């Protein structure tokens, strides 16, 4: 019970810090700052709870030994990564979700392809994503060309290799 409580409290603390910071000002590199907040909370929390049991012998609020710390860390890192993945969908609404919401809002009338295209006029999904990738140093804009950076090339290789292994066609 003790280990589970510490794990949950640390996760809630990290989320509360992130939520409060976002209420004050949303940072430019949101994903990076999210990772920093969650990782720092974990490290501080582990140090504090492990330290507590080292200095006091045994504590109901402390973690005892490497494996208890690892269990809390696995839980925390798993949720941190899951949240970062979900957060990217909050930052930019996916075209599929936008289409579904529009059709749902039309109730029983439905929506024609023309109506959907009309609503998306002026919306360039590629431009939003390219700008985000330039910001994240995945691609560069050079003399009328988009070019992969070393980081972008690595990510492209990872996804391309895994997709080929799975035998899937290209997505997007």
């Amino acid at each position: 019970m003790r280990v589970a409580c510490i794990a949950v409290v640390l996760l809630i603390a990290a989320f509360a810090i992130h939520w409060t910071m976002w209420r004050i000002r949303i940072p430019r590199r949101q994903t990076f700052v999210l990772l920093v907040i969650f990782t720092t909370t974990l490290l501080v929390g582990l140090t504090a709870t492990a330290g507590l049991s080292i200095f006091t012998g045994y504590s109901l609020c402390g973690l005892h030994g490497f494996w208890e710390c690892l269990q809390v860390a696995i839980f925390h890192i798993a949720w941190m990564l899951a949240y970062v993945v979900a957060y990217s969908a909050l930052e930019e609404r996916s075209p599929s979700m936008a289409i579904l919401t529009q059709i749902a809002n039309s109730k029983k009338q439905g929506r024609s392809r023309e109506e959907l295209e009309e609503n998306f006029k002026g919306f360039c999904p590629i431009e939003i994503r390219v700008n985000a990738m330039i910001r994240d140093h995945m691609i560069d804009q050079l003399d009328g060309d988009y070019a992969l950076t070393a980081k972008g090339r690595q990510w492209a290789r990872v996804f391309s290799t895994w997709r080929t292994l799975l035998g899937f066609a290209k997505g997007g």
Partner: protein
Amino acid sequence: MKEWYPILVLAPVLGLTVYCVAQLLASRFCQWQNPYASLTIGFIVGLAVMLALSIATLGWMGTPAIDTVSFLCLNIASYLALAFGYFNFVNLTIASLRIRILEELLESGGSMPINRLLLQYNSENVITARLQRLVSGGHLLERSGHFYIRQKRFLLVARVFDGLRWFILG
């Protein structure tokens, strides 16, 4: 009894490893049209392995009932989060525009003229591809040139994300 504890701690990670391997094998050898079928199989197999390992080690450790329940909940929560991460990783290769752009750039030698990319992925092409995927996935129904909601599962996800966006981003 403490010697079993590391297995309990690592059970979610082992479950995830089994999920990845099972999904990879299912995807390679079962040739399903729907890519999500292999993900579902992998998730169930990984969950079963994680639960079996957790329950067995908790039994061998002889932990009190309240600790058994809390450890089990912790491991299930960890596995669900890890599985969600892996699902999204695979889903990115299926649905993400960003990854598609990266792959197109990689295949064209690392760079591509801006106009060619913008032309290839204008809003019309993106809407056509998404409508096709939503219809074939059973989320939308096309009748007399109009699209209607068929399954509400994905719509529910969209609504949840709208709520979260409001809560977190204001």
